[in-house]
């Protein structure tokens, strides 16, 4: 059983499958009138968010609440952190208050690793800097699995700012671990030159990749990157890498369109494309709750969870 979820590299294919299967059983809870099970009654989950986040924080909060855990939301604005408290002292405070799990979102890569040095609680990485976003990758896998029976040989393109994307790092690793063929697509300035060592193919053009895809995964492109001259203009970026209606026409009919959100409509994804039935953006959100329930349940050894299951 893993104590902390810091990186998807900790997870074997068997562990991934176990998480997705567990999520399956929790997916149904969200469809009930009373969306709650008693699995983590009396346990305390702290959401420690050093970065603004809507969907991930709410998703974790709902996941914990649906498992009947007590949830504390600790955001940095208006807290001791805004008075200059260090991560260490915040950690020791949460430790003293008896947190069972700490879900951390932080702008610094590696902050969840650092946190584990000071707390006994399980630490769940909810996105650290430009490093990883393991729960996003798992919910994406879950969403894909709803449409394809196996990941083996599945062709997935991850398109955009791979260099600065924690979603791309976690996603590429976990997808290749599960047997999918990943192609990273973007201008050379936004694809780390070492990405080839991740077991992914690299393409600097989107169009030739489209016709064979099962999943076209679009990453958010921050306008800030244009100001830093990673690409000359947003217009040129959208023309070369934006998923337009025309490009959707080049995708196989079965292909899924995904995006971790929040979207820049009109930049990496055209507005009408985002609203197509094969665009699963809202499914990803719904599934996120079930996957995070599964992780909290398995990691905290909730009622009925087997020791050594994860």
């Amino acid at each position, binding site marked *: 059983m893993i104590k902390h979820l810091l990186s998807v590299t900790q997870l074997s294919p068997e562990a991934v499958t176990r998480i997705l299967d567990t999520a399956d059983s929790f997916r149904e809870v969200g469809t009930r009138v009373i969306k709650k099970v008693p699995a983590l009654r009396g346990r305390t989950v702290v959401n420690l968010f050093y970065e603004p986040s809507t969907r991930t924080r709410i998703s974790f909060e709902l996941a914990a609440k649906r498992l009947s855990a007590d949830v504390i939301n600790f955001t940095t604005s208006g807290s001791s952190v805004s008075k200059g408290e*260090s*991560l*260490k002292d915040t950690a020791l405070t949460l430790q003293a208050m008896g947190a069972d799990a700490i879900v951390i979102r*932080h702008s*610094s*890569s*590696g*902050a969840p*690793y*650092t946190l584990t040095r000071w707390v006994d609680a399980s630490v769940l990485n909810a996105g*650290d*800097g*430009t*490093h*990883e976003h393991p729960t996003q990758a798992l919910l994406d896998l879950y969403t894909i699995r709803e449409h394809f029976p196996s990941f083996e040989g599945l062709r997935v393109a991850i398109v955009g700012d791979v260099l600065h994307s*924690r979603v791309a*790092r976690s996603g590429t690793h976990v997808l290749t671990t599960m047997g999918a063929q990943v192609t990273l697509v973007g201008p050379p300035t936004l694809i*780390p*030159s*070492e*990405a080839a*060592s*991740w077991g992914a193919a690299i393409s600097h053009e989107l169009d030739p990749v489209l016709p064979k895809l099962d999943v076209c995964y679009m990453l958010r492109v921050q306008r800030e990157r244009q100001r830093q001259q990673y690409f000359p203009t947003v217009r040129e970026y959208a023309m070369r890498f934006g998923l337009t209606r025309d490009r959707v026409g080049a995708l196989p009919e079965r292909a899924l369109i995904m995006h971790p959100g929040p979207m820049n409509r009109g930049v990496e994804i055209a507005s009408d494309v985002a609203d197509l039935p094969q665009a699963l953006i809202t499914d990803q959100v719904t599934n996120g709750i079930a996957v995070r329930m599964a992780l909290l349940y398995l990691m905290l050894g909730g009622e009925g969870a087997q020791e050594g299951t994860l």
Partner: protein
Amino acid sequence: MKTLFRGGRLIDPAAGRDEAVDVLVEDSLVAAVGDGVDGAGAEILDCDGLVVAPGLVDLHAHLREPGLEHKETVETGARAAAAGGFTAICAMPNTEPVADTTGVIMEVRARAEKAGLCDVLPAAAITRGLDGESLVEMGELADIGVRLFTDDHRSVQSSRVMRLALEYAKAFEVVICQHAQDDDLSEGWQMHEGQYSALLGLTGAPREAEEVTVARDLLLARLTGGRLHLTHLSSLGSVDAVRHARAAGTRVTADVTPHHLSLADEDLIEYDTNKKMNPPLRTPEDRSALQQGLAEGALDAVATDHAPHAVEEKEQEFDRSPPGTTGLETALAVVLTHVVEPGAMGLTRAVEVLSTAPARILGLEEHGGPVQPGRAANLTVFDPAAEWVVGERPFHSRGRNNAFLGLSLRGRVLHTMLRGEPTVRDGEPTR
């Protein structure tokens, strides 16, 4: 007062000597070197199985005083140096205020003299307040004995300023020391750019961020005939560039740190801030090239880049932590364990790069050997086989941020002597 070091292996690169002999010290000087030296009236230290060497010399230590005493003081830094076998260290000028005037230099010297543990040679900045633009009063500083000028962690970016510094320095035969790093190419860096920066999601600085500045400065040294020293080189391309420039007659010397000789970017896999360095740890290939360059003489010296920080400064998120490791108390052991023991370099060369060569670069007549009658008794005695775990005994430095914390090293300093005065005896500082 007489002290006899009996039966040790004297490694004295300046005299080309490596043999088991006795060394007798009387007052501040070496009195005799040879077999069966008469020890009548002397305190006798049995050095069987130990190495006797000229005191170590460090080109690059951050003593933090004045202004940053929560990290280190001249006294604690000098004590750490003595404990590590050093008898002379060059203090970096990035203090608050910056060591860019004679006043600050004199103050650091005064504190070092009061501590009496190690000769401290303050380096001065190249530019006032490390602004990269306005040269310090190099003539006046040279007149009071400053031998080395550096803006250290602030690499001089302007080619014009670097050219003028190298040129102007020629009048005083002083050394312009550069931490080579192009700020544009290393903007926002946290580690070496490569496989591990991509994996860890940390912004990388490529080797080329160092190499373009190394290449530029070598050309400027050729142009001006000025005396250039490149400090803590980290990349294989830098080693090659120095080798070629020197073969072509350029006046350049260079050093490398113990941590760049022993660690690599892959060691950052758990975001250990004690291994965050400036320049960053690079790949195992770079490390091999640095070891080879040092062994072959393309690189002249080992310099610690001793960079103490307060615990709370290092116990932070990786990108908020300042870079650097302490080094004075571990330098010798790291070189012995990670470079000499695997066979990349001999023990004599290790003493040369840790003592003789840096003493020559700083123009220190009294340090670095030769260990001969009539010369100042600046010596260190170490047990090359003694194994110890870093951190199991308290550090003498105020800094606890050592990259080798918890690791086992071989090579322990037992005695250090500064002009005949014991500064370390049986592994413990005498004051």
